[in-house]
């Protein structure tokens, strides 16, 4: 009996691993061309279903069904699995940095031939985020121009001004630490999307293509400068090292231990749920600059792409154009708490109520639109997640052991290059 139990347990282990690795081959979905078209739309943006129901009422011939299939992090895995099984949605929300992966994984459809409908409504910077190689693979939905969100009440009490440069930020971090023990000016960038947004204004190019070859520039001067800056603050103990959106971080945002957060313009809306007691006490300013440069960074935001499985790409793009680049659609996006990527959408922001956390700052939207206009361009590669994981794992352990952050940067660079080569790409 023991022997068979054991064998079963062993076999179970094999089966579990086998199940872990389940995936299928891609197939083609058929679709009939007559009658009303139904499009399935996978997304996670809250409140998007309300916007879509407005469309559905007006367009009986193109019905869109919203499915909250997964959050931003799990969306790719689900899409890949569904697509390889020949299933999945017609439309899917995807973060900008994940689009190249979806292109090389044969999930995203090149919609260049329909792009005339919407391309005029987006800035060049926004369009560059959905352009992969020679094709356009998605319609931008929302973006996150970087803002410095700070506790205006505490700043005013102590006579502090929001820092305009990172040097001022460092000085202020020290001042906060001595004046208010137990409080921090802010946290270090332990996730790579924050780090990328800090390094973008310096001209960082983590991925670039030259002909058919990739050039990886993670471990280069701009980003090295950013990580060296933050390591000094971490070693001085004047910045916090709690990862954002953990329970610990939420407590600190709410009880006044964290006095600022440098993140995308969605930050006030996103932080409200963890720091409701501080509503109205925050204000936003431009992100500090390194050398007074004008370009700024982007963090987060997403686009909606059409999948290769979709039998109705034309109708899908028609809907996406309405959703992301029409007055009516973008008003819905704004109501849903998103910062629209299109110029049409951004022009709708004036006069809109500002997020609760910054409710005393009437010009919040003007500021965000102004920053969005100056975004520095950035190219993402097909294996962004490798860099993100390597950075966030590495920086946490380096913080524990005191190893230089630049070593982590080099490890991330090496991991990305190795992964590209393993996948058959040429790396310069």
């Amino acid at each position: 009996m023991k022997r068979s139990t054991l064998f079963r347990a062993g076999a179970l282990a094999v089966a579990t691993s086998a199940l872990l690795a389940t995936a299928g081959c891609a197939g083609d979905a058929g679709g009939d061309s007559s009658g009303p078209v139904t499009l399935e739309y996978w997304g996670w943006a809250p409140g998007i279903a309300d916007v879509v129901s407005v469309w559905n009422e007006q367009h009986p011939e193109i019905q869109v069904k919203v499915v909250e299939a997964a959050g931003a992090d799990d969306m790719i895995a689900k899409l890949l699995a569904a697509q390889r099984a020949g299933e999945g949605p017609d439309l899917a929300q995807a973060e900008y940095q994940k689009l190249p992966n979806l292109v090389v994984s044969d999930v995203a459809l090149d919609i260049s031939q329909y792009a005339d409908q919407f391309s005029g409504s987006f800035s060049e910077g926004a369009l560059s985020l959905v352009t992969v190689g020679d094709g356009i693979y998605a319609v931008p939905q929302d973006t996150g121009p970087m803002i410095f969100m700070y506790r205006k009440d505490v700043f005013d009490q102590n006579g502090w001004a929001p820092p305009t440069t990172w040097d001022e930020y460092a000085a202020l971090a020290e001042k906060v630490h001595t004046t208010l023990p137990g409080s921090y000016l802010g946290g270090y960038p332990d996730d790579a999307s924050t780090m990328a947004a800090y390094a973008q204004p310096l001209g960082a190019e983590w991925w670039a293509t030259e002909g058919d070859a990739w050039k990886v520039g993670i471990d280069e001067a701009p980003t090295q400068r950013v990580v060296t800056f933050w390591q000094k603050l971490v070693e001085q103990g004047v910045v916090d090292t709690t990862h954002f959106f953990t329970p610990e971080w939420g407590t600190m945002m709410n009880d006044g231990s964290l006095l600022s957060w440098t993140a995308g313009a969605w930050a006030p809306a996103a932080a409200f749920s963890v720091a409701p007691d501080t509503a109205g006490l925050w204000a936003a300013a431009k992100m500090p600059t390194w050398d007074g440069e004008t370009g700024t960074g982007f963090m987060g935001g997403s686009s909606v792409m059409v999948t290769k499985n979709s039998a109705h790409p034309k109708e899908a793009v028609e809907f996406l154009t309405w959703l992301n680049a029409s007055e009516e659609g973008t008003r819905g996006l704004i109501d849903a708490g998103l910062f629209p990527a299109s110029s049409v959408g951004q022009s709708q922001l004036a006069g809109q109520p500002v997020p609760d956390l910054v409710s005393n700052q009437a010009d919040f939207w003007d500021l965000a639109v102004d920053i969005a206009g100056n975004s520095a361009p950035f190219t993402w590669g097909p294996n962004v997640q490798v860099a993100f994981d390597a950075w966030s794992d590495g920086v946490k352990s380096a913080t524990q052991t005191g190893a230089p952050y630049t070593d982590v940067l080099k490890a991330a660079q090496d991991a990305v290059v190795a992964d590209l080569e393993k996948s058959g790409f040429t790396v310069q």
Partner: protein
Amino acid sequence: MTTTISRAAPRRTSLRPRVAPWAFLAPALALFTMFLVVPIGYAIYLSVMQLRSSGGAFGIRRQTFVGLDNYVASLTDPELVASLGRLGIFALISVPLTLGLALTFALLLDLPGVRLARFSRLAIFLPYAVPGVIGALLWGFLYLPRTSPATYLLQAVGLPSVDFLNGSWLYLSLSNIAVWAGVGFNMIVMYTALRSIPSELYEAAKIDGASEWQIAWRIKVPLLTPALVLTFLFSVIATLQAYGEPTTLRSMSNSISFNFFPLMKIYRDAFNLDNTSGAAAASVVLALGTLVISLGLLRLLQRRTFGEN
């Protein structure tokens, strides 16, 4: 024997022994094939493939045969080796503690005249019924400095607070969750085995003047050995599959990486990095390792424990 039967009635009976066993086996075989053989075969197939770009900077990646490349990559991956090391530390703390406590509780509950036995048994078993993720979250909040009652108590008596989720505390904290969740199940297995020991043995020992301590140590524990071996094996296998607790606590701790334990690394490779092939190869390696360890342990212990086999 079969030859005699077939000689007596060649037509009817010669078929029957050939068909009947298979007919009875068919449902089990079908399930076995569908849910074990095919997935294992598919995992092995995946482990020798790799998604490779068809050329160009944005060339579409397709499944390509790469032979044993994924196995070489898995076995030489320092991250996988490091994760096995961390798992080893975790196992060294949690397995002996779980089994030791389970044995202690089982023996205590088996004492004659013990009070509140049913209640205690249920109370010790209850954590096993709590879903792993919920248990890990509960403990996570108890560990986090800002929400932990331990911090509150320590500060009340003027001691510095403890960061349970970093440094050397981390392994103790993780093991604590595993022990908390695992003791109940193992205790029940041992307790059931204890109840099946004939009470005549105890009476005989008592007549010979043995104390309860001597009965426990000289009679109960030796007779319990089969159950101990079984629970030990289960615990080792469960430890090799540890995944839920560190994954749940990852966002709360700076010390838990994406590849903290082997299964976390496999999950990350398969679902975050879309490297299903590498994950499949690592899974096969891990599964074979589990099998070898289990069979080895069993062979080692079997000779002493199940001599009659």
